[in-house]
């Protein structure tokens, strides 16, 4: 884990909430669109609280086995190998399950005993029950707008968590994030943010996932390395957003006119 402080710009009172939730030994649910800084925030808080961080990016194939651990065969013997959740509980780490709603139902159920007063983890394959130490904290994230109607987090799971919603940062904050993150000059940063704010209007048409701050950071990094701004912005903003040829052309128009 990195010892140095991680750049993070507060957009609300999230740090305060995180810290108190951690002290109260409650689990935390972070909501928000992709690339709005959820992961960065958790990294920042883990460093601030001086705890190791275990991150698991969940996908639709993530199963209970992937999280808890499995038996491996070594030289004719079976050997138990801890999964990331088990390891995090043993170490008293901050466990971050990213996009938990994507994981399979059995994977979501195994974390249930960790989320209530028991704070336990039961390993059915080894018959072991682990009690989470005081420093352990479970943080999960999910993106409510993404894959709507099918991958919703069940109410029985959600209600175990303290929740916080991230939005896209305000214009000035987003400009400061770009400058702080990449050292780019403010004029370029504000233009990138102006492009993003226009393209975000398209999200209502559900044509594209919206422009995340992360994409802007990527564009700023490329521009900072000396690539021509229009080229860099097209590559870092337009291309990752959509494959639709008309949408691509329209976004490029905005980029060409602004930069």
């Amino acid at each position, binding site marked *: 884990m990195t010892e140095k402080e991680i750049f993070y710009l507060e957009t609300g009172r999230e740090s305060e909430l995180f810290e108190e939730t951690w002290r109260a030994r409650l689990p935390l649910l972070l909501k928000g669109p992709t690339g709005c800084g959820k992961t960065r925030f958790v990294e920042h808080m883990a460093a601030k609280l001086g705890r190791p961080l275990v991150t698991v990016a969940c996908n639709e194939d993530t199963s209970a086995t992937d999280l808890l651990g499995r038996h491996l*065969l070594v030289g004719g013997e079976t050997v138990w190998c801890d999964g990331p959740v088990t390891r995090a509980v043993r170490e008293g780490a901050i466990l971050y399950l990213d996009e938990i709603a994507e994981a399979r139902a059995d994977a979501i159920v195994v974390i249930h005993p960790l989320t209530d007063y028991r704070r336990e983890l039961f390993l059915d394959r080894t018959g072991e029950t682990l009690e989470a130490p005081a420093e352990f904290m479970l943080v999960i994230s999910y993106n409510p707008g993404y894959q709507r*109607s099918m991958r919703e987090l069940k109410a029985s799971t959600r209600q175990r968590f303290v929740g916080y919603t991230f939005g896209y940062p305000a214009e000035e904050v987003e400009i400061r994030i770009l400058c702080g993150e990449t050292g780019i000059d403010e004029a370029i940063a504000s233009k990138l943010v102006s492009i993003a704010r226009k393209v975000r209007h398209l999200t209502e048409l559900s044509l594209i996932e919206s422009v995340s701050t992360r994409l802007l950071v990527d564009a700023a990094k490329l521009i900072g390395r000396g690539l021509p701004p229009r080229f860099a912005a097209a590559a870092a903003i337009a291309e990752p957003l959509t494959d639709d040829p008309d949408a691509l052309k329209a976004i490029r128009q905005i980029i060409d*006119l602004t930069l």
Partner: protein
Amino acid sequence: MSSILEWEENLFLGIKALYRRLVVSPRERNLAAVRAPLEPLRQELFLLARMVAGRSVAIVETSQTVLCDDEHLFLPSGFDAASSVEGNEELFRIKTLLGALAMRTGGLHRPGISLEDLTGTLTAEFPGLSERIARLEKSLAGRDLWTLLGEPSCRSSGGEVVQSARTGETETGAADEEITEIEGEGRAGVEAIEDPGEQPVEAEMPIHTFEKAETLEESSGLDRKTDEEDELEDHEEALRSLEMTQVMRSRERPRSIYRADLVIEGLHLEVGGEAPSEGIPYPEWDFKQRRHREDWCFVRQTLARESDVVWATETARKYRSVILDLRKKLASLATRMERKRSQPHGEDLDLDAVVRALVDSRAGQAPDERLYVERRRKRHDVSALILMDLSFSTDSWIDDARVLDTMRETIFCAGEVLDEFIGDFAVAGFSSNTRRQCEFHLIKDFREDWVGSRARLGSLVARGYTRIGPSLRHAQELLVRESGERKIVFLLTDGRPCDYDRYEGEYGICDVRKAIETGARHGIMTHAFAIEKRAREQFPRMFKRQHFDVVPSPRAFVESLCGAFARLRLGT
């Protein structure tokens, strides 16, 4: 034709053709060579306008040189003022951009300040703009850019604009096909009177329309020209105050629809006569007698032959993003997990394989290394039949779109994706004209190739009534023969069961419910999609909760179809 013309006329026509070929055409050809049409750019321009304006924007195709009004951006069908195709395309982009800026919330445009002056204030936001405008002006060969673009209009959009927006959106229906529809208040105790000039039921298609016996002029004093014109909108006010007490059946095709729930007295709709010789007989549920009427309806199955490839290509382009979205979502739903033993990789050890391997190695043999259990995705074994309502009521408009168009575009999107995930599916349309003539119009049979049959959707026409029961029973009959582990009928309709011979109200609803129950007993699930919001009243009585959705557009259908699949997967 020309043989009956006088020789002078022939001569004149000949000279005119020659003149066109030698003088006019080259000039037109030059213009045609540099002309940039709106259509291929339309979606790009729409997105551009949406981003810049920051609110909803509609593009209206018009020959007037107006820039925009509060909601609409006016663009011509093509530009040919610039000396190159690129220049004319640029003209479209600049017009869109400036129009969107003028429409932007807060509004840049104030009376008395020209558009040209305004663009000067935009350099901070769009530094590239003035350079592009300068380049564009050079390619215009002396024509004034600002005249070409037009000024923003202050007037708000009128009915005429809405009309042209409609024709622009749906290229399938000709303008004169448009029908205005107004929702009226329901009324009970309406008397049906015979039109003296009207023959009673004939063999040809009866149309369930009624003209108000007392004319509108009498009711309101408005001057009404002819029945052929679509002027219902003008009469809307008058209609609102209309007392619907007597109605008359008419065989004419409606130009305007005033839709109201009426409880009609003294109307004999039962059609007598013998059963027809052709068609597959199906029973129908009589809810009053609480029994099936055996061999009551006769279904004729036909296979669609005509197709419209242009429509298919256009729809594929128009809904590209919807189809991609649907595909992405169904990818995870339309498959299921399967445990495979003795695999080289996997999540768990296969204990049997481990024991075997240990025995082998103790016995001095090379052990098999495939020791794991792996979970794999497997395609669902589903047979599906998509059944769409083709009745006349689908020819009406809801929210600027014809119901039939919305339905077939929806099915097109579904078919594009189902083709990939469940190989075994069929598409059919249905309509009826009394119980003796139920049409089951097969658009894609189970064995047919989707790509080869999808264009048939484009050539569908609305006809007849909505007798849902027999077509549902026939669809179930076809599905029973299929091999899928799970079987489902997706039913798309715009409303309620109704047919000429009293297949309506409680009777129709109960029959549909019965057909669904019967299907369920044979393992065939029915999921209904309604296009109309009014269906919210009728649907719950026919379909169980969670087994129907009301969808306003193909895009909303994506969500619904995924939900239906999710439930299918869970087996509920």
